[in-house]
């Protein structure tokens, strides 16, 4: 779970280095995509985005634009040093790579061949599934002291009450600088109950601070 292979698109639309910019832009519009890997002889040789294509030709409205787009070959505008992912990379690693390089996609390469592509929208979709947003549940935010056994303590309370956990995500309360240690973590639970009040009450009595729902 949460690997690149679980979220990537396998049917990739690719270009050859000889494709024209006009043709590539047409594909972007038609298929509603923004990133196209470039393949030659089965091997990935580059990647091109709709932005690369647009900015390669004279500006919109310029009479020379159409003919320039027809003339420009992908090999002239593509990025040849491609940042890629492997199908077995954790998705968070792929997300971090895209974030650090400020790019919107990673072609996925397996045994030297293009196996798929993962984009920032795929990562967002994985996040939606991760928090279980499509399944019925109530959301609870609980502060978890940063020591062993505290998450299990919270989960145990749900267990005693017969409440199933749809999803659980825990992390530092705020973004930390490297090396800094957190003063506590927040766990966000989606639990399959319409009435979390008893759980909130028990959590409070067990010494956990509940950020949501508000206690009356």
């Amino acid at each position, binding site marked *: 779970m949460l690997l690149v292979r679980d979220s990537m698109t396998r049917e990739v639309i690719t270009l050859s280095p000889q494709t024209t910019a006009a043709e590539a832009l047409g594909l972007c519009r038609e298929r509603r995509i923004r990133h196209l890997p470039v393949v030659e002889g089965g091997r990935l040789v580059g990647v091109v985005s709709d932005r690369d294509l647009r900015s390669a030709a004279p500006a919109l409205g310029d009479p020379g634009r159409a003919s320039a787009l027809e003339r420009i070959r992908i090999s002239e505008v593509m990025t040849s040093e491609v940042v890629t992912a492997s199908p077995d990379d954790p998705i968070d690693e792929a997300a971090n790579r895209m974030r650090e390089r400020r790019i919107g996609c990673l072609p996925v390469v397996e045994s030297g061949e293009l196996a798929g592509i993962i984009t920032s929208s795929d990562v967002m979709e994985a996040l939606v599934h991760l928090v279980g947003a*499509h*399944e019925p*549940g*109530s*959301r609870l935010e609980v502060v978890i002291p940063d020591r062993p056994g505290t998450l299990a303590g919270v989960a145990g309370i749900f267990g005693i009450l017969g*409440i199933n956990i749809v999803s659980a995500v825990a992390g530092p309360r705020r973004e930390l600088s490297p090396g800094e240690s957190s003063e506590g973590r927040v766990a966000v639970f*989606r639990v399959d109950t*319409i*009435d979390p*009040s008893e759980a909130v009450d028990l959590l409070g009595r067990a010494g956990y601070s509940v950020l949501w729902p508000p206690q009356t």
Partner: protein
Amino acid sequence: MSGSAAIVHDLELEAYGFGGDHPFNPLRIRLTLELCEALGLLEGYPFVAWEPATDEDLTTVHTLAYVRMVQQASRGGGELWDLMHYGLGTGDNPIFPEMHQACARVVGAVLETCRRVMRGEADHAMCFSGGLHHAMRSKASGFCVYNDAGVAIARLKEEYPGLRVAYVDTDAHHGDGVQWMFYDDPEVLTVSMHESGRYLFPGTGGAEERGRNGGIGYSVNVPLEPYTDDGSWISCFEAVVPEVLRAFEPDLILSQNGCDGHVLDPLTHLAATTRLYEHVPSRIHELAHELCEGRWVATGGGGYDIWRVVPRAWTTLWAAVSHQELPERVPEDWLAARGGDSPVQLPRLMRDDPADYPSAERIAEIADRNSRTTEQVLEKVLPLIR
């Protein structure tokens, strides 16, 4: 405006409940009926008799495997892990003896309520026990085992081919079960106004949920901010419900009248008062006469302040369904009979005094966000409804 009204009920319907101190307590229905009776609102309205839903009725929207599992659980059978897979035996939906029978009676009652109206035997009809809108195809959820509205709509569609049903749900929780059952269906318009699912169960019901395939545009969701009060809620209702219903032109309106958006309700974070629960039925009543010759079926739904809120809110609903004046005062007889049992002070007036419930500090911002949601919903769905 007039028309004849019917109420479907009997004592056996009050067997649908989970016992102990579970928040879904059928006592709320007893209290409501006693209040209606003390006010004289039930005179001339004998309870209508009916049959429980059959397996064939239930499987119009539920899987046979699920129905069998509920029946097994009802008899005390089934492995806990299998049951839990179907949402049974959890904290929300604990198993109780004869739960299948109890819930099949609720579904049968709502089905009969609808059929009365469709046959023209009543213009409007009401069943307090209905409104189990969270029940899913194969899963009990949020205190709901079988989906009464789902079964009733599916059955009526078979009995009256081409029938167009508008389902209007003003419970504080998203009407997810009913929505998903008809998500592809352009003949069933589901409209749900509820507290935003950002925190509240079931978490769905965002404005972007609009239906799918042929049914796109026929699921309408208006998620409201926590702490929304009467003023903002009513103006969102007025902006959306009449418009989408007029565009849809229903043959029947089925309303789910959960009253758990009241400020005193322990399960939600909305801030409505009885003003909302008087406004909504009276407007649905008018729309039923305007659009579908008065054909309107009303059910209950959520409502967990069973002493101060539910009896008054649903008595008000019944008064609208049956065209009776709502008296001002809660009758002394009822207060005397029930006041001693109540853990809280019972209100003496049928309508809340708004001065008792000041608005949240951020109310202007809340109202503003709600009205933006409303505009966005209308803009996206109205062009799709035909």
